[in-house]
């Protein structure tokens, strides 16, 4: 018990000393990945390298495997029964399906969902949930983390006076930004976003896009979106998926201006999808 606490303090001291620097790198390398839901072959031979501290967008029609791939990066597919995964997933330099430390992985790889899912507790407790999971109990330390995370999510000013109010009382857009702050609270190197703005109005969407632009300075963002303008606006790299295959992957500019594959071109021009 004592040793654990000492370790925890040491870890947090180290974090303080080195600022945002962490032990793990922030890139993702996937090679020869295949995924099956029972008999259904959902991802086919995926190879992709996601660069650190950039925004990478996954686009493609519904059911093409974007979200499935995203959920591989923090092993959320483990929740799905009959899901079989093959291939190598190097997240931060570590083969995540060989390691048993799923919770540690999810600390380093945060996730934001399609629908805002704040817990039915106070704003403060929502943000402090992750740090508390990893054993941080001191009020002062938690206060610091909550403030930092809310500042990173550009919400500190609007929420600092209602930290003890229920998070369910916030508007949909605020709830989603709170979820981003909650994910930032564990200081992840990577954040996954699964259509984070599809349930929101245009103004809230704009705020979240702005936020993504600012967090990419210290975090890798992988985002699934149905909105092609959004991908074009915010991402540095874009991958186009079709029927479980990664059809094309490259710099966003190139994908939208000079797509190499016929399918990509047709999808971007809006001829199907």
């Amino acid at each position, binding site marked *: 018990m004592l040793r654990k606490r000492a370790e925890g303090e040491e870890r947090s001291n180290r974090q303080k000393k080195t600022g945002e620097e962490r032990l793990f790198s922030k890139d993702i390398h996937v090679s020869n990945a295949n995924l099956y839901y029972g008999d259904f072959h959902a991802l086919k031979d995926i190879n992709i390298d996601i660069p650190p501290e950039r925004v990478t967008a996954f686009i493609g029609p519904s059911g093409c495997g974007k979200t499935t791939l995203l959920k591989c990066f*923090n092993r*959320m597919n483990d*929740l799905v*029964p009959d899901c079989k995964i093959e291939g190598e997933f190097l997240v931060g330099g570590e083969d995540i399906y060989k390691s*048993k*430390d799923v*919770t*540690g*992985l*999810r*600390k380093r790889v*945060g*996730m934001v*969902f399609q*629908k805002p*899912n*704040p*817990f*039915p*507790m106070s704003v403060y407790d929502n943000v402090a*949930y*992750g740090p508390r*999971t*990893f054993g941080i109990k001191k009020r002062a330390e938690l206060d610091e983390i909550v403030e930092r995370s809310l500042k990173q999510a550009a919400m500190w000013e609007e929420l600092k006076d209602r930290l003890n109010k229920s998070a*369910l*009382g916030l508007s949909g857009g605020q709830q989603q930004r709170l*979820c981003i702050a*909650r*994910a930032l609270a*564990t200081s992840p190197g990577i954040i996954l976003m699964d259509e984070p703005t599809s349930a929101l109005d245009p103004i809230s969407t704009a705020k979240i896009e702005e936020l993504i632009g600012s967090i990419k300075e210290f975090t890798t963002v992988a985002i699934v979106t149905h909105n092609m303008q959004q991908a074009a606006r915010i991402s540095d790299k874009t991958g186009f998926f079709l029927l479980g295959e990664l059809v094309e992957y490259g710099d966003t500019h190139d994908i939208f201006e000079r797509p190499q594959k016929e399918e990509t071109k047709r999808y971007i021009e809006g001829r199907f999808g």
Partner: protein
Amino acid sequence: MEKSRIKEMCGKVVFAATAALCIAAAAAIFIFIIMKSVPALSETGLGNFLFGSEWAPDANDVYGQPLAGSYGILPMLVGTLTATACALLVGGSLGFFTAVFLSYYCKGRLKAVFSSVINLLAGVPSVIFGFFGIKVIMPLFNMLSPNGNSSGLLLTSVILGMMIFPTVASLSKTALEAVPRAYYEGALALGDTRDQAVFRTVVPAAKSGITAAMILGVGRALGETMAVVMVAGNSPQFPRGLFSSFRTMTANIVLEMGYAGEVQMGALFATGGVLLVFVAITVALLSLVTSEKKNGGRGGKKRGISLFGGRKICFAGKVFSVVSAMFALAFLAALIIYLLIMGLPHLSGQLLFGSYEYGGEISILPSVAATLMTVGISLVIALPLGICTAIFLNEYAGSKNPFVRVIRGAIDVLSGVPSIVYGLFGAVTFVTLLGGSYSIAAGSLTISVMLLPTVIRATEESLRAVPMSLREGALALGAGKLRTVFTVVLPSAMPGIIAAAILSVGRVMSESAPFMFTMGSSIQPMPEGAMSGGTTLAVLLYYLSGENLYTDEAYACACVLMLIVLLLNVAAELAGRALQKKFQGEKNAKKKSRRRRALEQAKENG
């Protein structure tokens, strides 16, 4: 990290173990009841037991010589089945039509009122039904009876019918409301009247759900004990007419258990065994009906029921629906008002807080104490076990796990076992285990087992209401399963779990049969501790109502019991509503407040 994995494993094992306990409990009930009945059955023979038409326990003749008794339960078997069938006729039809009324002929506040009526009726203790039967309905029926005494089949059927009514009504209502609205609209679009659309299209579509409701009603009627004992007359003979005295199997056990000799005792356990067979049959039928529902019903010979086709007949159905609902409301109102009028004036200080003297003054204080102790102990046991089992079923076990099917079967059995059989079970297990004498602890343990299905189902329902996205959110933040369950899922489900706890309190207050052979078979003085005997309020009412000496006290006791149970039910309903609000109500609440604001503005403007 290793440590947290061990913690997760331990959690899973604990949850699975509690779930396995349910299977053990269900199995133990069967094993003990059968084991205890074997000696008697081998003496009389199974055939003579089941088909013998004379029940005359061992006795001494006038010269003090022992007379070998005969133990045939056929009259009681027939009695139970006849009473159940008649009760189904009364309660089943009343329940069905009320459900139709609730789901298709009323809206808004009216619907809320009638739904509460059904819930409240479901919570009324069985002794109160019996008491009301003796005091109010019996005098009415006596006027019709040729010999001026109406305790018997008709009275029992009416009382039993009213008791199964809430079960049938609420489950049928759920089935009717699950029918897609499009069926109803489709029928209207084809030119049906509203009544025709309801009775020709919606009702047949909800057939399997309604059948399930009826089967559960039958299960409840088969197992009902205390109310029946109070109104059936209880002579061990075949029912010969509407006003003939008869005896059910459950009544047989209550009446004779207290002074039974060895063989007689065995025969009573065997009677319990026969009841268990009926339970097993209803559970099997139920799973058959519900699995058919899942498979979309049998195809092939589907004929519209031509009887329900015509406009006039469907209109008659509507009239029946309205009348049934009104009748239920009137019955509940009569029950409450009657008990208040008769009971409140007799609530004296002596009765509430005085001391109890054997054969002299009566006070309900010892019973209140005994009831509170029973409630406390049984909740401490049943709540953690039930909640852990529900967590295992809903959070850990996959739906395809064969273990889960066995657990669900065990829970169905536990909820179907008649309360009197729980009494028998408690008498041979917990009473023996705790030193062989009646005690509050033994009674509490018995009722804890009985509470398990209630707690598990209510908890599971509230766990299911917690959106999946919250669990995902916690897991994605690196929380383990245990942490997710305890910090996110359980707190979100808390109102539902509180409702389950309140319902359990109500259940303990209203049960009486399981306490008769575990806590003491006569009125007990102030309990000195958990190991001394006790008489709960409901049991006290049963004893008082049998003695004409204490009529006023009986009324007062019934009034107190009724009020407590009603309050608990209202509280449970409020807690349940809070749960709904937590997840769906956010927007609605805002809308409401906006509406209210608009109203206020309108008022200000004149």
